[in-house]
C-alpha cells in the first residue's frame, strides 16, 4: 500500500515537474515572440501600386463576395482629361456618359464636368468590383492616377490574404495597421 502511494506521489511529482517546465518553456517562447515583434504595429494587407499589374484577380480571389480591393483615384495626379482612357472605351463613339462609351463594366466611375475643358472622375465604391480594367486604361495612356487599394472598411484582414496568394506580381504586402494605405500621392499638388 505504501509503495503504491509512493508511486503515486512520484508520478505526481514528475507530472508537476513536466507541467511547470512546459509552462516555463511556453512562457519563454512567448517572450521570444513578443521580443521579436517588439513594439511594431500589427499589420494589415495592402496593394503596392507600383507592383500592381491590374490583372483582375482582386475581383475574384477575395474571400468576400464583393472584393475588398477597389479602385481609388489620386486626384492631384489626374489630368482631368475630356477624353479619359480610364473612363472611355478605346475609340468611344462620343465623349459622353452613354453606357456604350464607358470602359467600366459596372459603371462605377462618375464623370463630372468641372470647368472648360476639365472633367473630374471619381469612383462609386458601391459599384466597383475591383476588376482594375480602368487602371489599365488609365496607365496605358495617362498618368496612372487610377490604382488599386485594399479598402479597410471592407477587408477582413485574413491571416493570409487569398488575393495575395493569387497575386501574380506579389503586389500584396503587409503594412502597419496605423498607416494602412499605400497612396500614390501624399498631400496636395507639387
Amino acid at each position, binding site marked *: 500500500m505504501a509503495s503504491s502511494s509512493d508511486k503515486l506521489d512520484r508520478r505526481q511529482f514528475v507530472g508537476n515537474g513536466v507541467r511547470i517546465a512546459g509552462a516555463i518553456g511556453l512562457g519563454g517562447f512567448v517572450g521570444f515572440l513578443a521580443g521579436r515583434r517588439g513594439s511594431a504595429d500589427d499589420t494589415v494587407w495592402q496593394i503596392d501600386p507600383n507592383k500592381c499589374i491590374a490583372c483582375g484577380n482582386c475581383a475574384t480571389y477575395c474571400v468576400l463576395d464583393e472584393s475588398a480591393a477597389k479602385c481609388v483615384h489620386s486626384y492631384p495626379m489626374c489630368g482631368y482629361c475630356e477624353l479619359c482612357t480610364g473612363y472611355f472605351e478605346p475609340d468611344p463613339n462620343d465623349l459622353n456618359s452613354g453606357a456604350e462609351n464607358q470602359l467600366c*463594366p459596372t459603371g462605377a466611375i462618375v464623370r463630372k464636368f468641372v470647368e472648360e475643358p476639365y472633367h473630374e472622375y471619381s469612383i462609386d465604391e458601391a459599384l466597383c468590383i475591383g476588376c482594375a480594367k480602368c487602371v*489599365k486604361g488609365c496607365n496605358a495612356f495617362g498618368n496612372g492616377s487610377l490604382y488599386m487599394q485594399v479598402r479597410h472598411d471592407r477587408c477582413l484582414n485574413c491571416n493570409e490574404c487569398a488575393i495575395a496568394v493569387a497575386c501574380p506580381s506579389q503586389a500584396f504586402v503587409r503594412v502597419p495597421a496605423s498607416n494602412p494605405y499605400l497612396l500614390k500621392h501624399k498631400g496636395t499638388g507639387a
Partner: protein
Amino acid sequence: MIGIAVVLAVAIGAVAVSRVPRSGDAGSGLPQRFDYDLKTHKTIDPALILYRQAGELPLDLSASRAVAVGPEDRIYVAGDQKILVFDREGTRRSEIALESEPRCLAVGGAGNKEPGRIYVGMRDHVEVYGPDGTRQAVWERLGEKAVLTSIAVADSADEHDIFAADAGHRVVHRYDPSGKRLAEIGRRNREQKIRGFIIPSPYFDLAVTADGLLRVVNPGMHRIEAYTFDGHFEEPLVWGKASLEIEGFCGCCNPANMAAMPGGGYVTAEKGIPRVKIYGADGNFVGVVAGPDVLAPTATITEETREDHKLEVVDVAADSRGRILVLDPAARKVRIFVARNPQMETKS
C-alpha cells in the same frame, strides 16, 4: 446507409480539396468584357510602314530624355546628367556634364546666329552651352510649378529667338538669345479663340517650321496648333484628331513629341501605343516610321501598367537628309530610320 454517405462525402471532399485553386495562375476568370485589350489597335498594316531602321546608337543612359539635331547633322542626346554628342555617322564625339537632369534640348542650326549653341531645358530653367560644351548662361528660374518639356530655336537670318514649352504653366515662353523672357504664347484667350494648352501629363512639344511659324502640340486636344512668333493663333492651320486609328492620335493626350521634317511635314511620336508617324505639311497622314512591334517588342498584358507607372516615351528628330532619329529610352538607344523608298527622302 450511413457508411455509404460517409464514404461518398470523403470521396467528394477529397476531389474538392484537390481542386482548390492554389495560385492565381489560372487568371481572374472574369468574362471578356472585363479585359482591357488594345491588341487590334497595336497591329499596323505593313503597307503603311515607309521606313526601315538603318542603324542605331547605343546609349549608356539610364534615363534618356531628348534627342536633337544640330549643324552638320550632329546628333545630341540628353539624359541622366549629361549630353552626348555624336557626328552624323554615329561616332561619339563628346560628352557634356550637367549639374541637374535635363528634360529637353535644342541646338542652334546652321542658319542661326550662333550655330551649334546648345539650349538645355532643366525642370524649371534653361541653360545654355557653347558648341564646345562650356556653360555660357543659366537663365532665370520659372518657379516651382514649371516643367519645361521642349525647346525650339528659330533658325532664320532675322529671327534667333528661343521658345520653351512649359507644361506646368501650360504656356510657351519666348526668349531672346540673351535669355530675356519676351512673351508668353498660347495662354487661354477667348477673343483670339485660343482655348489654351490642355496638358494632362508632362508631355508638351513644339517646333519651329520652315514657314516661320511656331507649331505647338496641344496634347489634350490631340492637335498641332500654329502660332506666329508674336503669339497670334493661326486657327486655319490647326490639324490633328483623336483616334486609335493610325491617322489619328491615340489616348488621352498625344502626340507626346513632334519634330519638323526638313522639307516641310512632321514626324510625331505617341505614347501609350508607341508609334512614330509622318504627316505632310498640311497635316495629312503620310505613313508610319515605326510601331509598337519595334518600339515595345515585349508587348504583354502588363505593359499597360508598368512598374512605377513610368511611360517610356520616345522622342523624335529629323536631320537634313530626311533620316528620322527615334530615341528609345527603354532600349537605351537612338534608332536611325531611313525611307524604304529613296524617292520619299527627296520628296519630303
